[in-house]
């Protein structure tokens, strides 16, 4: 008779190796004999036995059939052969529960689980090898194998999850210890000891994955490196004359490319070094249109065509729990003052300088200087700065430009936040523009819409005054194509004591293409009424492509 059998021998062997199963096989013993190696133990404890007869499906006894008994708990395996009458015996088994199997023709033909052996008792287990017993045995072995597979999967999962760096991590800590007069260090204060600060390496027991370790190493390396940033832009504008005639130009195209290279490095606690090298190339409309303000804010950076220019280089440190920031070096002092949130950046907002800077701040170029910012993080901010205003001056005393500002951020009248600033400046480098004052406001009306306004004035030697003001609206999250787009409309007007007057309006839409790339469209109109000469006006459509990374 041929039985359909599940044959797990190879898989079981492999699993046993992997699982480290503790099964120990004792030497096969003939019927009626205890397994080899058990004799010594038999003398020390009480045992029981299993015995019976093995028959085939026709009830005929089977000789030389291999019967095995495996201790469920310990995995100890006992084997016996049937004699000529088909009987087998395990006369001295340790007390416990056993799985009894008979293997015939290389496959398990019978399996009985959980045969209980008690002390000094023999269990009679007669075995019939037929189709039913073989099927039952195969099923039991399959279940056992599935259980082993489950355990194996769990072990593999554990193995996977434990594939981490398990060597102890170390880190350095700043600790306070106590040092006595002999220089001995103590954890606790002892008589004659004084507190002292030292640094100590400590070992921690944290498993890290390889990726975590790599990330940490890369972050650490980046922190110690000099960081480099790039801000590049190209602006293209077209000028269409709307008022005035010759000699004012008409229908001209302009382009100006700018590239800033920034270097930043942390050099001490809360202290950084910064340098900005800039190069510009091209022709802005300001070279040909004699407007009071710059029609392209980048023009202010243009000192010499196609030449590298060290625009800024300074050190900044933060003191008193980082409430006071001091910066010194070659500065653009206007960067620190009148930082209007909606109209203060020619690279992402308005292009016209009249909507970037308060024209009454009055500083033409960068120079050696110093800035102090006090920010207690309660809404108030105080700033003071001074800078050499004339790079050709032979001393600071005769070219001193100072700026002071007080600012306050709060949420007035149930509106979102708004920032309000008042500034005051002095400049001794010019005889006719000594002092100036101004205000700057940016106030959100909703999360999407904000308004801004600026006013500035400067007194002149002959008691006259120049005036400037601007206002506008900016949108961040409303009426936009993409979530990070911004747009705005602004108006600026300048009235000089000389009689010169300018009115400028600009609208822009800034499209965020990627985190590092922006494209903006601008349309501005400027109308100038010179004190002497014919008034003129220009319509200037423009495009700005800006990359920052």
């Amino acid at each position, binding site marked *: 008779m041929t039985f359909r059998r599940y044959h797990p021998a190879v898989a079981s062997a492999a699993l046993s190796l992997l699982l480290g199963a503790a099964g120990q096989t004792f030497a096969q013993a003939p019927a009626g004999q205890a397994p080899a190696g058990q004799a010594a133990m038999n003398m020390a404890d009480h045992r029981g036995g299993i015995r019976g007869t093995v028959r085939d499906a026709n009830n005929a006894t089977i000789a030389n059939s291999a019967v095995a008994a495996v201790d469920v708990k310990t995995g100890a395996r006992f084997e016996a052969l049937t004699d000529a009458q088909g009987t087998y015996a395990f006369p001295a088994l340790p007390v416990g529960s056993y799985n009894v199997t008979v293997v015939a023709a290389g496959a398990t033909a019978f399996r009985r689980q959980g045969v209980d052996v008690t002390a000094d008792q023999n269990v009679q287990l007669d075995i019939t090898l037929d189709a039913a017993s073989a099927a039952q045995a195969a099923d039991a072995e399959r279940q056992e194998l599935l259980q082993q597979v489950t355990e194996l999967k769990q072990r593999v999962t554990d193995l996977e999850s434990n594939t981490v760096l398990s060597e102890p991590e170390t880190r350095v800590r700043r600790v306070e210890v106590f040092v006595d007069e002999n220089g001995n260090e103590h954890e606790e204060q002892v008589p004659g000891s004084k507190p002292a600060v030292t640094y100590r390496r400590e070992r921690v027991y*944290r498993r890290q994955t390889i990726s975590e370790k790599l990330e940490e190493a890369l972050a650490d390396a980046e922190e110690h490196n000099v960081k480099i940033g790039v801000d590049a832009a190209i602006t293209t504008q077209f000028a269409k004359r709307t008022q005035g005639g010759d000699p004012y130009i008409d229908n001209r195209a302009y382009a100006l490319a700018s590239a800033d290279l920034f270097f930043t490095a942390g050099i001490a606690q809360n202290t950084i070094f910064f340098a900005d090298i800039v190069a510009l190339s091209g022709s802005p409309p300001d070279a040909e249109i004699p407007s009071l303000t710059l029609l392209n804010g980048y023009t202010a950076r243009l000192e010499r065509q196609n030449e590298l220019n060290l625009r800024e280089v300074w050190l900044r440190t933060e003191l008193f729990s980082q409430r006071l920031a001091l910066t010194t070096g070659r500065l653009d002092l206007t960067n620190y003052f009148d930082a209007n949130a909606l109209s203060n950046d020619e690279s992402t907002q308005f292009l016209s300088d009249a909507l970037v800077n308060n024209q009454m701040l009055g500083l033409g170029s960068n120079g050696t200087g110093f800035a102090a910012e006090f920010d207690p993080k309660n809404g108030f901010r105080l700033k003071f700065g001074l800078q050499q205003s004339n790079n050709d001056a032979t001393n600071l005393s005769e070219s001193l430009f100072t700026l002071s500002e007080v600012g306050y951020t709060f949420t007035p009248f149930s509106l979102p936040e708004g920032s309000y600033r008042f500034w005051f400046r002095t400049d001794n480098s010019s005889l006719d523009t000594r002092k100036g004052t101004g205000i700057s406001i940016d106030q959100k009306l909703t999360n999407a819409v904000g308004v801004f306004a600026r006013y500035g004035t400067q007194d002149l030697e002959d008691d006259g005054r120049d005036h400037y003001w601007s206002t506008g609206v900016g949108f961040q999250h409303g009426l936009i194509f993409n979530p990070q787009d911004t747009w705005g409309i602004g108006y600026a007007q300048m009235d000089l004591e000389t009689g010169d007057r300018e009115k400028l309006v600009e609208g822009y839409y800034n499209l965020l293409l990627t985190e590092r790339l922006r494209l903006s469209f601008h349309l501005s109109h400027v109308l100038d009424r010179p004190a002497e000469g014919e008034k003129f006006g220009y319509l200037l459509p423009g495009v700005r492509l800006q990359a920052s990374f």
Partner: protein
Amino acid sequence: MFNVARRIISGLFIAAVAAGAAATGIEAQGVKITDPTSVVMIVNRDSNDIGFMDIKTNKMIANVFLGNNVNPHMVMMSPDGRYVVTGGTRANKAYIIDTRTLQLVKVIPTDIAPEHLAFSPDSRWYYQGNPDGDSISVIDMQSLSKIKTIPGFVEPLNVTFLPDGSKAYIGNYGAHWVGVVDVRRHELLKKIQVGSIPSVAKLDPAKYLGEIKGINIAAPSIDGRYLYAADSDLAVVGVIDTREDKVIKTIRVGKDPWRIYMSHDGKYGITANNGDETISIIDTKSNSVAATLEAGPAMTGINFAGGKAYVISSTSGFVYVYDMSSLKPAGRIKIGTNIQLETATTDTQDRKIYLAESTNHEVVIIDSKDNSLTRVKNVGLYPWGTHIMDSKDNYCH
């Protein structure tokens, strides 16, 4: 005769009392905590234990060791106060501690890298999120056994149960949706997308095909009717109506919001926007941003106490403070220099904040009354977070 009887009765009574006292004494020796609200739990990542600190005396009661290289992540007490649980991130197991005896009573295998967790309001179910296994392990707190692993999530970070316990909402940090789980069947019912990907996303593979920073948590409104889910990459907060399980409004906030934290009075939710180092304060009545204020770098948490919001800036060593009545900055508290701040819990009086500071292995207690600091040192190695039963600020990184 009467005296004899009285002596016998007295003798029996004394013997009974003595036996009772002895029995009580034996039990009392095993009981470490009688009031589960009286302790602050501290999860110590590198000493692989849970610390228990007496909330009145600020003294450590015990540190329950979990095992070598367990690296526990978040600790939480069951709402009934009976058990304290944590997920061992590097051991892939959940650990259950008996609150009264502080004995580790069960260790249950989970999926890979268990981190954040939550209990159903009736304390029956403990949902353990496994971010690296993309699954939730469901642990039955009656039998203290894992009954199911719910698959189908993408880096599940936090679990929020509805007050009636019928549904749980899972924030998926590796995707842009909130998973809705039927708690009766422990099955993922639906995925709620909180915001749409902008059309220019394909131009920016470095951002959108790099690491996803999706949804950390769906935080509930005070009545549990609405959930607020901030999506980091999309820089929005989706407001989910839990009756219909749909987004009713999308609010744009600052760049790279780590997650949202709800104020205790339910009026505001605040996102910590690590991309631009600001916070966005959302008015839950109008579901709009009431203010966007300057904050600090690497924010890991926001706690509310004494009418103020305390924003933890982990790498700067500062906690930024905001007045929640005027919605304006109210200064900042320096905790230390060159230290790493982790997360914090607030006591049930909404007065004291227990902030884990991992560099010096201490918990810093901020009293919101005067912003004074008390330091409890040597609480365990690398304290990673704290927890108080019934606190409204129980969260983790």
